[in-house]
Structure formats: C-alpha cells, structure tokens
C-alpha cells in the first residue's frame, strides 16, 4: 500500500513539482493551498508525512505544527517544514514547536526526496 503525504503549500507551481516527484516515488499526495483547515484534513487523512510551508493564507505553518503536536494522535507524525524564511529565529521556532525537519527554499529535488525518505523509513 502506498504511503500518503499531505502537502500544505500555497505556491502552486512548487506544489505541482513536489506532487510530481513524490508521485513518481509511489506516494499518494494530497495538496492544500490554505492553512485554515489543514489540521482537520491531516487528522482525517492520517498521512505518513506532512510537508508544511510556513507562510500560508488562513493559518501559518507554525500554528498548524503547534496544533498537530497538541493532538496526542499526531504528536509523533513526521513534519517536514519548507520555507523561504531561513532566519535562525524561524528555525528555532520550528524546532521548539516540534518540527521533524526544516528545509529552506530553494532546495534541490534530491535533497527534498532524501529528507522524505529519512523521515518515513
């Protein structure tokens, strides 16, 4: 059975590229462009991995991560955060909120795929 990932990314072309890459690796990819209902969708989808942008309409990636970690069923769910905000402060905030991996844009496809494999192996 193929693994599932929920990708929350409002940059549609990035989302499309990631969806293509992960689909080629056998993943089932569900994409969201808005953060407002992301936690509900993730809870329902019960994915193997969540990929989160930080700056999202509706609800920020940090808020979503915080909500996920507050849910006992989702507190250990691997979360890969993708952001164009690479400041150390953001990285610290993400780590404090319980991120599994933090990657800054632009990243290479190979780097992203390696991170996905590591987080779900």
């Amino acid at each position, binding site marked *: 059975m193929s693994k599932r990932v929920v990708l929350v990314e409002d*940059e549609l*072309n*990035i989302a*499309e*590229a*990631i969806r*293509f*890459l992960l689909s*080629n690796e056998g993943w089932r990819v569900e994409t969201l462009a808005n953060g407002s209902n992301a936690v509900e969708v993730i809870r329902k989808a019960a994915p193997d991995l969540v990929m989160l942008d930080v*700056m999202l309409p509706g609800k920020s990636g940090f808020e979503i991560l915080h909500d996920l970690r507050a849910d006992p069923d989702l507190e250990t769910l691997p979360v890969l955060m*993708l952001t*164009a*905000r*690479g*400041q150390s402060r953001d990285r610290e905030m993400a780590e404090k909120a319980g991120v599994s991996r933090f990657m*800054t*844009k*632009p*990243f*290479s*496809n190979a780097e*992203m795929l390696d991170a996905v494999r590591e987080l779900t192996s």
Partner: protein
Amino acid sequence: MAREALTGSRIRERRVMAGLKQADLAREIGISASYLNLIEHNRRRIGGKLLLNIAASLEVEPQALTEGAEAALIASLREAADQAGLSGPEADRADEFAGRFPGWADVLAGTRKRVVALEQTVEALTDRLAHDPHLAASMHELLSTAAAIRSTAAILAETETLQPEWRDRFHANIHEDSRRLSDSAQALVSYFDSNDDAADAASSPQEEVEAFLSAHDFSFDVLERDGTDDRVIADMVEQAPELVSQAARHIAGVVLRQVAEDAARLSLTRLRSAIADTGNTDPLALAAALRCPMPCLLRRLAALPELGAGLVVCDRSGTVIFRKSVEGFTVPRHGSCCPLWPLFAVLGQPGLVVTSRVNQLGRAQAQFECFATCEAISSAQYNTPPLVQSVMLLLPADAGAASGMEVGSTCRVCPQDNCRARREPSILSAGV
C-alpha cells in the same frame, strides 16, 4: 617612556608642524635654544609659566602639550591597537606615538571612531533588512519563485521519460515563474533605489495611489468640470495603469471623490482669483474670503501645481491616509511619522488651526510654512467621539526665512539626538 615625560616630544612636534625653528621659538619665549633642545628631548621637566608661554607661541592649548588632553586620544589608539591585534612593546607605546606624532595619531583615532560608527550603522541597517516587512515579503517572493523554478527545471532536465503533457505543463510553469522572478527582482531593485520619484517602487496600494496621483500632478480637470459623477471617477480608476491592486483602486476612488467634492465647493479658478486679489496664500485669510472650510481650503491649495505644496492627511489613529510628497519633506513609507508634526498637534481638536514654520532634519534641508487643522468626518452621534481627519499643508518657505521648528520624518532615520519625542534609536545615531 612614561606619558608625563613626553611633553617635550609634543612641543617638538607642534613646533615642527608650525614651521618654527628651535632657535626662533627659544628666542620668542626667552630661553636658550640649547635649553629648549633639552626640553624637547624630554630631559628637562616643564610646567608653569614656561609651558604657558610655549603653548601661546605655538597657538595651542597648554593641555594639548600635557598628558591630560591626550588621554582620550591615547585610549582610542589603544582600542585601535587591541582590535588590530597589535600587542607587545609597540602596543605599549601609544602615548609616545601620540606625543611624537599628534597629527597622525588624530588621523588614526578619527579613523577608528569612524570605523566604529560605520560598524554600528551596518548593524542597524542589517537589523532593518531583517525586519522590514516589505523587504521580507519581497525576499520571500523571490525565494519561493526560485524554488519553484529550480524544482521544475530539475524535473525537466532529469526525468528521462517525461510525458508530453507533463513536460508542457512544467514548461508553462517555468515560463510563468521566470516572469514572476523578473518582476520581483525589478521591484526589489526599485525598492533599494533611493529615487524620490513616487512612481518608483509602488509596492503597496498607498504607493500605487500616490504614483497615480503624481502622474496627474494631483490635479484633475475633469473633476473640476464634471463634479462628483461616480461613473467618471470609476472610469478614471479603471483606466489608470498605476492602480494595479484592488485595494489601490478602492483608495483612489475615495481620494477622487474627495477631490470632486472639494472642487464643487471651491474651484481652482475661484481659488486662483482669490489669491490674485489678496496677494498671498494665507489659508486663514483665503478661507474667510472664500467662506470655505479650512480642511477643504488646504486640500485645494495643495492641488495648485504652481505652489509646489505638499499635503499629508491622517486618520484618528494617526495613520497617514494621503500624502502629496514635496521635496525636502519626507513622509515615511514604513513605520510611524515624527510625532512633532503639526498634523498630530491638531488631531482630536476639530476646528483648531495650527501654523508653524518647520524644517525637516535629513539629507534635503528645506523649510516649509506648515498649516494643519482637524475636521470631523462622521455625523454626530450621542456619546460617540467623531471620526476625525487631520490635514497638513506644506508650503515651501521663502528663501532666507528664519529657522523654524525642527522635526524629523521617522525616528529610525532622524539624526536629532535627545529628542523628547523619540520612540526608538536612530540608525543614524552612529553619526553617518
């Protein structure tokens, strides 16, 4: 050598700098050249009247020849040595260096001071780069677009059996993103360009509106003629290339309706005629002569291109909601304005008119006759404070006018030290 023993060396250096021969100075102060020679080689202690006479002849303060005057200089030299990693016997001879080469020591200490000031400024600007919301948004846009292009380009380059529909889709995405990248980069360059032209770097709705108004020189003949026809205003807004965002179009519509209402109340033709009759542009006299409310009159004066006036309007929160820029008076694009502006002195006091000559500290020194007033813009309701707007007109002051009140643009870039209204340190406080 001990610092106090170097007064002679300083005398010698100052004498040489003054172009005096040892014999000439000795004669002038009434001692022998050989005795002066001993003093200059620090073999005789010197003080009292002789020191004062030598200082007078060399036209320097006596302290400049003694250790006290050089304490700060020597401390600065030691700091410079520390930072450069200079240690050992040479580093210990800062006082001797200052004594023997006071001019060079001043240059070195001054340069050191300048370096420290510049470092502080760089730090402050770096902080600004990290926290400026517009810059942060632009950088985010750039990086996000670059990420999309990089991922998509890699897929195109590295996927051997890419289906044609996917390939076409990714080509289209790259095309779209490369245009976005180009636009974002251009906007960023415009942002850093310090050109004062309001049409540049229109990165917010307010700036789009200002660019639109500037393109029309803040004057709209059609509104002077046709009054407040909403269709005319809607057409103007729709056809304006400067108004890109929905928010900008909304704001521009509000501004144009205000212009139309003002024009209906006081045409520019009538205003010009009144100025010609009275021979001046004093708003109070004109308002009385024309029976025009002061806020309207100030806005109308700002609409006369020949006056070269500026105008700033703020709402009850002090937020600037309209600006007509004028060279020499900066209205900040980001952050809060200087609270010393007369604009804010009248806020919350409808009917009060304040006049003041002001000059804004900064690069472009210019003086303005400033007139500010406040008006209620909502109808009266019981126990409800009215919504108000303050209007401030800036008329360039006559050349040679006496100095006015000094104000800033915003604390971050205001050089005024010890300002009673300062909210935060200036990035210019390092003296740049």
